[in-house]
């Protein structure tokens, strides 16, 4: 070992630790791809088979669009949102419980880099799951795409929004049952009551009103617009709501990270 070891090499380093944290988060879910990608795809396909078998001939949502085609973008988005939420939340709670989060906290990675790496990994996992559901669904029914731009915008923004929510949940939860409560009492009802399986126009007026307060409804509605060119709300309205929530959640998450909430005592 040479004497040069005394001199820290940080001055020569030009790259940020962000890339490594992002790489680590991607590698973490890729290593267990059967659980993080294959399992949600199989779940989405089971929903597709069951709902289509039961409702195909009984439900007509939009003119000229069969129910099976209507359902696929909803299932894609639901899987993307749930997995984007799960990625940072499960990573943080596991790191906290096992104690290895300290290896990140000891490094020069800033709160912004921390935030960006966890959310970017959530978006990648969300898009990977959504793309896989789509590719597998092509085996059953090829669905048209009216606008790739809208599909990509809502897919990315919706995944980012849920990734940030997962980050906040991961910071807040100290135990696995707290995380389960967050998922079961907030995320699950919001996704199931967001128009994945139906158009909110088929609901009574009261529940239509309630649905408009659900931000996840707008991610799915805007995403579906990208496929069919029709939706329950204007895509611009959906974009404004989803972007608004993205900004608010970003602000909350950054404030929590800056304060060291449940990370630094």
């Amino acid at each position, binding site marked *: 070992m040479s004497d040069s070891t005394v001199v820290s090499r*940080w001055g020569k380093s030009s790259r940020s630790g962000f890339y490594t944290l992002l790489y680590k988060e991607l590698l973490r879910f890729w290593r*267990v791809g059967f659980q993080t990608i294959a399992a949600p795809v199989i779940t989405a396909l089971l929903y597709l088979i069951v709902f289509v078998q039961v409702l195909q001939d009984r439900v007509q949502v939009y003119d000229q669009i069969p129910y099976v085609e209507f359902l696929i973008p909803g299932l894609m988005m639901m899987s993307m949102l749930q997995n984007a939420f799960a990625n940072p939340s499960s990573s943080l709670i596991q790191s906290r419980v*096992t104690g290895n989060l*300290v290896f990140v906290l000891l*490094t020069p990675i800033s709160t912004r880099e921390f935030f960006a790496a966890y959310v970017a990994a959530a978006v990648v996992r969300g898009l990977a799951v959504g793309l896989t559901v789509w590719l597998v669904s092509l085996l059953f029914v090829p669905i048209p795409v009216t606008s790739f731009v809208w599909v990509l915008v809502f897919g990315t923004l919706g995944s980012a929004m849920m990734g940030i929510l997962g980050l906040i949940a991961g910071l807040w939860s100290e135990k696995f049952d707290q995380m389960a409560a967050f998922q079961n009492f907030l995320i699950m009802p919001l996704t199931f009551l967001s128009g994945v399986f139906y158009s909110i126009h088929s609901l009574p007026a009261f529940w239509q009103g309630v649905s408009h307060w659900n931000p996840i409804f707008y991610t799915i509605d805007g995403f579906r617009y990208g496929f069919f060119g029709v939706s329950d709300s204007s895509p611009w309205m959906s974009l404004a709501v989803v972007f608004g929530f993205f900004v608010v959640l970003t602000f909350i998450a950054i404030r929590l990270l800056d304060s060291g909430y449940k990370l*630094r*005592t």
Partner: protein
Amino acid sequence: MSSAAIEFDHIHKTYKPAVKHWWHRLAKRTQDEGFKALNNVDLRVEYGEFFGLLGPNGAGKTSLISILAGLSYATQGTARVCGHDVVTDFRAARRSLGVVPQELVYDPFFTVMETLRIQSGYFGLHHNDDWIEEVLHNLGLTDKTHANMRSLSGGMKRRVLVAQALVHRPPVIVLDEPTAGVDVDLRRSLWEFISRLNQQGHTILLTTHYLEEAEALCGRIAMLKHGQVVALDTTDALLARVGGAGLEEAFVQIMREAGQATVESS
């Protein structure tokens, strides 16, 4: 005054009391002032020193190290590593510091090599394999390079913790009870390696309950009790206080005197 490897200036740390219910937090209904872990700690460790931080359980050793590492915020006072404030200049401070934590923690998803490459990458060092292999060799981990962290014994995991603290070649290394529960063989090889690093110029801050280790390795020692420095001197001077009867004897005597002083002042 020129900068030192480690500086603690008037450090106070009070842990807020646990709030049982959220409505208590909102109403700020708590009479408890919290636990005062550190009370006006002033310490300065010069470059190249092998410095010991001793004290009984709950004396504040880990709290002090946590403040240095940025894992905890001081209620009052400032801490610096190589002249860099750990809060306002945290990037430079953390790049100058390698910490071996007390708990045996690891990420079960990765192999030893992946763990070290990732840790190195966090510091912005992305082509660091030569140094990583050198550290692995010096810690006797070469044959475990591609083993998953889960498959390692406790002693091997402890070695990886040390390697993780060294991947970015920090000039200051903090070892928080690194030999707790470690066999004699690893303890000896670990101290040989750390002593070599110290001879090459690295500053070492060690906390341990094994006083014979501190006596053999440390040039200067600070003793903490109830969050205050109750003794700070060279190892030789501390030993001279008890006529060379050993550091354990000196430790017991100093702690007893500090206890009596606390009783008299209260």
